[in-house]
Every structure is written in C-alpha cells, then in structure tokens.
C-alpha cells in the first residue's frame, strides 16, 4: 500500500511526504496540544526545529529520542526514505485518558493543521475547527464533572487528571506510569460501559 501511494506521488512529482496522526500523552484537555514531528532524515530534523509548537522525540520529557509509529503513518516515512524522498509525520497530542473516547479531538487536528499550513505557506480558515474544539472541550469538562460528582471516577484518579490541568507540557513529570495506568483502567472501563450514552452526551 505504502509503495502504491508513493508510486502515484512520484508520478505527480511530489518531493516531500507529510503524514499525520495522534500522539497519546500526558496532557490535559484544556491545554494546547503540541505537535510531535518525526522526520525520515537528519536534514529535516534541523528544519523541524524552526517550526512553532513542534517538538522532536528527543525533546519530549522522559522519552529519550526513540519510539515507534505504527501503521501507514510510519511506514510511509520508511518507504519514502528507501526511495530517497523526504517525509515527516506530524502527530497532535491528545490526553491519554481520552484515547478510547468515541469522539474526535479537534484541538490536536488544529495544532497539526497550523504546522502544516505554516510549512506550506497556505492560508486556511481554522475558525470552525477552533469553535468545535472549544465546544468539545466544554463537553469533556461537563462529562468529567458529572463523573466526579457521581464518584464514577475515584477521587485519587480525579486528582491525577486535575493535576494535569495546572502543569505546563514541559513539566509533565509528576504522574507516574502506575498512576497513568490506574486512570486509564477507570476511564476505559467507563467508555466501555457507557460508550453509547457518552456519545449522546457529547
């Protein structure tokens, strides 16, 4: 599949490939998502450092400079590299406690679009996406509040989620993997049990 996509791209004279996806991380839903960028060559890494609100793997707290990108988003980078084409994957941050949520997360999409339109020098009206992002943010707030009130989420898990609200992205160290796992267990369970209702709610 990746080869077929790039065959067509090359026929049209494309010189660079952009892919995009989500980066599940410790971020609060009220924060502006950053964009994780993974290029397929060293020269592109230098260029990426100049983009706004964009970070390389090595700049992500506690991650080192390693990772993996699954699916075609990643594979296209590799196949492009093999063909000598430049490629970069841009991933918008989404809160890990919402990764199983049955609704979109426009704030991350908007962050990616801001970067890509900036690189390509395109003027795109993102106000509708901004509006949708705000609306969904409010709905997430209401949804979590209702879960807190009914104690569907234990107080310690609530505290961990709320801790993220006041932490800058560069300071997201305090929540441990164990705490993250605990939050995920509860949130996933809630989405599994009440997925349909939640969908209506939002």
């Amino acid at each position, binding site marked *: 599949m990746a080869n077929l996509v790039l065959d067509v791209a090359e026929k049209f004279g494309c010189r660079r490939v952009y892919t995009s996806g989500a980066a599940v991380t410790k971020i609060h839903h009220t924060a502006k998502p950053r964009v994780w960028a*993974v*290029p*397929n*060559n*060293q020269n592109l*890494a230098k260029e990426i450092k100049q983009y706004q609100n964009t970070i*390389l*793997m*090595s700049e992500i707290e506690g991650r*080192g*400079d*390693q*990772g*993996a*990108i*699954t*699916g075609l*988003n*990643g*594979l296209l*980078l*590799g*196949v492009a*590299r*093999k063909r000598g084409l430049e*490629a970069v*994957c841009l991933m918008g941050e989404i809160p890990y406690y919402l990764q199983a949520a049955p609704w979109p997360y426009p704030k991350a999409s908007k962050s990616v679009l801001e970067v890509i339109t900036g690189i390509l020098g395109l003027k795109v009206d993102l106000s509708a996406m901004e509006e949708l992002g705000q609306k969904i943010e409010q709905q997430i707030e209401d949804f979590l509040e209702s879960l807190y009130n009914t104690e569907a989420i234990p107080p310690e898990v609530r505290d961990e989620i709320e801790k993220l609200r006041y932490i800058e992205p560069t300071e997201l160290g305090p929540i441990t993997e164990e705490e993250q796992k605990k939050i995920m267990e509860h949130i996933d369970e809630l989405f599994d049990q009440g997925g349909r209702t939640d969908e209506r709610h939002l």
Partner: protein
Amino acid sequence: MKDIFKFSQQPKFENPSLIVGWNKDAGQLSPRVIEYLNKKINGRSFCDIEPVDFFSLVGVAVEKDIAQFPEGKFYYCEKSDLVIFKGSEPEFERYRFLDAVSDLAQHHCRIKHLYTINSTISSIAHTNSRKIFAVFNKTEFQKELRGYDLEDMNWQGTPAISSYLLWVAQRKDIPGVSLWTQIPFYLAAGEDFQAIKQTLSFLDNRFNLELDLKDMDEQTQSQNAKIDQLRQEDTEINRCIGALESGLSLSEEEQLGLIKAVSEFLEFGKS
C-alpha cells in the same frame, strides 16, 4: 530470488570479494566501516533486498529522532573489485535471507571470498591496541590470511548473524572469514574510532585500497583527549581505566560505573 531482489544496475563483475556489514553493532563498528569504505572507494548501489518477508512492517521505529526502515543493499566498486553488502539483521526467515545474500554473491557476482565485519566487546582499555579475531570456514583460506595479524577466536554460544552467514557460505563452498574487532566495553554504546580504523587498515592491506585514514586518527585522538580529561576530573574513573591498562579485571559495579561515566561524558546517544 527475483521476488527478493530489486536490481537498479547490472555491473560487470571481475572476481570480487564480498564484504558484509550490519546496521547495528557495538561501538558502531560494522556500519561505520562499511559506510567509510563505500565512501572512500565510491561503492555504487546495484541491488536492494525487499524487506517484506524479513521484517515486521507494521510501522517504523524512531531512533535519534529519525524514522528508521530496514535495508539490505549491495554496492559494487569496479576499481577495487569489491562487492559490499550493508543490511539490517532480518527479524524473520534468517536462513532464507542469508541463503539469498550468499546465492546472489555466488551466482550473480561470482565472489571468491566472503568477509563479515563485527565488533566484540572486550575488557580492555581504550588506550590498548585492538586485536582482530577471525573465524574461518576453510583452512585453506585461513592459511592464505596468515600474516595479516589476525587472532584465532574460540566461542561457544548462540551464533551471531555473521557466524550464521559464514556457515551458510561454507555449505555453498564459499571460503569466508568472520572478523571480530575488539572494542572496550565502555565505548560499546558510542563509536570506537580506533577499532573502526583497525578494521579498515586490515581491509586496506588485504585489498590494496590505499585508504587515507588520517581523519580516523584525528577522531581517535579527539576522543582519547576527552577521556583523558574525564580521568583527570574523576580519580575513580582513572583508577578503573588504569586497572584495565594493567590487565586487571573490574567488578561488575566498577564496570557499570565506568560505562555510565564515559557515556555521559562523551554524550553517547546524542547526535
């Protein structure tokens, strides 16, 4: 075989030797030797191995910020009459992969000898000279390489990919040698320029390549100067390296301390 290989050129081979290196190796020895050699002798790629059957392609790994992709590439230098293979170690169907590499080398390139390049982690100091250990698959070839300052090697354990290739080559009657250059254990996470140079010097002598290795000397001197600085700043590190220079062994704790201090000081892992 047609499904596995993708040819981009059809060079005419004389009677070349094949040098095989892998993308990952302690002290970056294997990839750096191959890259350096390819650059100096102007090796040109003529064939790729299709990765589909040999690697997991559910995505890509990211290392040092950059997306990686498995590769297996053959290069040829007409002037030196050398075929070079540089590849990622296959994750699946290792025998089929090595069988294909040796088949192409034997029937398409008509190679006379096989050389594999690897490092071996040793309990030596960076100031010690590096030995190159050798494992042969034919005694006649072993005799032919006497005088090249190679040391015999004894090893029992799980075979590395190069040893596996040497065995596959033996079954096809291709004379081969697996070369294992020593690197100090505390340089394994970074680059050992002295070991890289030692290996290149062997290849230079063997194939009369007339390589100018001054830049390797400069890099070695620069790295040694940094480690000297660390020794001056840290008496415990100086004592540990001094012990290794005297042929003494270190405890596990001392070894780990030395690896950590040198890696941090030389900033291994940061590009």
